[in-house]
């Protein structure tokens, strides 16, 4: 555990990078949502008209804002931290384990942060002007568990996707990273094609699972990316 703890500490060496930035990003997203709602409100008058309030329910900011940064965290964690960990006498396996613990911490924090923001949003009657960032349809509109799980899975999927590509780069270089990106894209398109082809069956599953279908899919993809990064990491080079 000591050896894993070392690489976890490496991941946490700059907490504003590994832990807090995703929260800042969610905060900025919320601020922009409020500003945009305010601008709309200035034009339409307060309280907001029903159609605008309805549209607010579909604000996807929380879904779009964190992944880009978190993918970069994943890339750097398994790329630059890889070089540092090996310089300091760690093994590839211990780096992966410690970093994975760090990913769990970051993702949990994003989940908790989103739940707290949801609470604040509802407490302030949607930031006093009807703006919505977390009390939205894809987060279950006030469903605390679904908000936490969705944001947690979104974060850990982003981190492991970054970790996967960062590791492929370390192990096989630029060309294979590009090839891996193409293969992953083709794989996801194939998944979409399969869903379209089997749309009836997908509809049946959707009816029984609803949004949990997407969450299960995200969990499966995160597991796949984690397994891929673990396997490739064993061949990574400084």
């Amino acid at each position, binding site marked *: 555990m000591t*050896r894993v703890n070392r690489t976890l500490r490496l991941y946490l060496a700059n907490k504003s990078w590994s832990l807090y930035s995703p929260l800042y990003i969610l905060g900025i997203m919320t601020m922009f949502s409020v500003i945009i709602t305010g601008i709309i409100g200035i034009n339409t008058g307060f309280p907001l008209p029903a159609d605008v309030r309805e549209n607010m329910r579909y604000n996807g900011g929380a879904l779009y804002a964190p992944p880009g940064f978190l993918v970069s965290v994943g890339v750097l964690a398994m790329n630059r931290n890889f070089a540092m960990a090996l310089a300091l006498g760690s*093994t590839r396996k211990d780096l992966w384990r410690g970093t994975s613990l760090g990913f769990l911490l970051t993702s949990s924090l994003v989940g908790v942060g989103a739940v707290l923001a949801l609470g604040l949003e509802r407490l302030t009657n949607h930031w006093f002007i009807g703006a919505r960032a977390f009390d939205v349809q894809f987060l279950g509109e006030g469903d605390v568990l679904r908000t936490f799980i969705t944001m947690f899975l979104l974060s850990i999927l982003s981190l492991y996707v970054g970790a996967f590509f960062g590791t492929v780069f370390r192990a096989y270089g630029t060309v294979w990273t590009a090839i891996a990106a193409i293969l992953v894209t083709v794989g996801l398109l194939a998944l979409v094609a399969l869903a379209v082809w089997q749309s009836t069956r997908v509809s049946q599953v959707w009816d029984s699972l609803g949004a949990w279908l997407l969450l299960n899919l995200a969990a499966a993809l995160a597991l796949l990316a984690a397994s891929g990064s673990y396997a490739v990491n064993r061949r990574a080079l400084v």
Partner: protein
Amino acid sequence: MTVTESTASRGIELLGVTKSFGSNHVLTDVTAHLPADRIYGLLGANGVGKTTLMSLITNHAFRSSGSILVDGDDPDENAAVRERMCFVREDQKYNDAFSVKDILRVAPAFYPSWASETADRLTERFRLPLTTKSKRLSRGQRSALAIVVTLASRAAYTFLDEPYLGLDASARTIFYEELVAEYAAHPRTVLLSTHLIDEAAPLLEEVLILDQGRIVLQTDIDEASRGSFVVRGRESDVLDFVGGRALLTQRRLGGLLSVTVRGELNNEEHRRADELRLSVEPTSLQEFVAALGIHALDQSAPQNQTEKAP
């Protein structure tokens, strides 16, 4: 086999180590034994494979064939062996988000014997800017940071990769002083790669010279000094004095001749040299290496040169 008391002093054993990148053979059949607790110089021109060899020993890269043992164990993904090593490369990549302070705060977690006082003192002496992000450091500051981390780690196997790069004369003096002091107080195995023999020679106990991917010479520094001598004086006197001895090198300047001769002189020969007013001096490591025909070593002052594995 695990690391035990009985195997803990075996040092580094290389047997037929080869590393190829496609058809490019960087290291070929490298065989050497480096007993523990000595300071080794890994010498050779830029691009000759010094960093690659250290990368293989520390498992930063994988060998193509051959065997590497450290304290009797293969270091590949071997946590018990790897945690006894510290190898900050000359082109070390750090996390861009990390400042010098972040790096020096996390490094002690990796080494139970981390010397905080050494790290603090060296940081002060090198005037390392603690709040500067790693990617903003100059070449000299990167070298200084590598020296701070490596020496403070007190790792049983300490690797220094071209530690002089970008360091000015006063910083190089600090490095010499600190390495010698640290080594005297806490003996360990130090493998120092450099292409600057004369700079490094006073620090070293043993040298391994790499040329075209092979170790062409491994010798104790004292043996290297005793193994040959330089005679300078009037050409006719020098030639008369050396007689039938094999000359490793000879240089003429006007009527003066300077020759490097392999072997040792006895007292009688020393007296005769005095009578002929000849200067007899031990060869420097550089002269000895050059005399053996290994010419690929750079004699220039430290530059911002780098060596990278292909």
